[in-house]
């Protein structure tokens, strides 16, 4: 019997452009932390969240931080 997954179509592997990624970063920073992406980068680099995954910070900082830590924006 064919599995349901086997019947699903292939997906188009379309990577985001750097501009699209920045736009997503901007939307996330504004949505979760009420700041621009540029403001987040400045605060991050200034050490505003020395323990971003710690007890004083909620997970949304870590969510936004992936744009800096993983994707190298900023």
């Amino acid at each position, binding site marked *: 019997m064919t*599995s*349901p997954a086997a019947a699903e179509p292939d*997906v188009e592997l*379309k990577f985001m452009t750097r501009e699209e990624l920045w736009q997503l970063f901007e939307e996330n920073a504004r*949505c*979760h932390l009420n700041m621009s992406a540029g403001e987040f980068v400045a605060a991050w680099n200034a050490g505003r969240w020395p323990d971003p*995954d710690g007890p004083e910070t909620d997970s949304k900082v*870590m969510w936004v931080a992936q744009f800096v830590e993983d994707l190298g924006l900023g």
Partner: protein
Amino acid sequence: MPRTARAALSEHLRMMQIEASCVCRAVWRPGVPVQGQPGVTWLELTGPTGIAIGRPARVKLRASQLVATAPDQSDRAFDATVSGYRYELDGVDGSELIAFHWHPAGRSRITRPHIHLSMVRGADSRLLGAGHVPSGIVQFADVVRFIIAELGVQPTRADWRTILET
């Protein structure tokens, strides 16, 4: 078996899309390659506010993954494996409920897979709500199953059990 790294990533993306389709119509998208980690790509499921799950909405889901592609043992095909993730569930009001994290690199001192039990913040917050509860590696399918089986969200496809077991 995928013959190229790109094909392996495409197949992984297809499977993630099928799993997501058990609870929503959101689309997984690849971002750009991860800096300093050759062969690793960042994927994201949703927009910033999270995808509303359930009708009426019960929770909001955000998800991202780091996916590494590399030749398999035969050296004739490629595998794609998850090397990090953030799966986060919020209430419909945006309050944090639970977050499944694995971020092996970065500023956080916690590099192993863990869970934030954000919903227990309050009287016992110092004990659990703000802490990192250790976990094994959590698959995206496990999160989708949790949403359906434990949070009581109606699945959006009838074959969800089969999908999430494969």
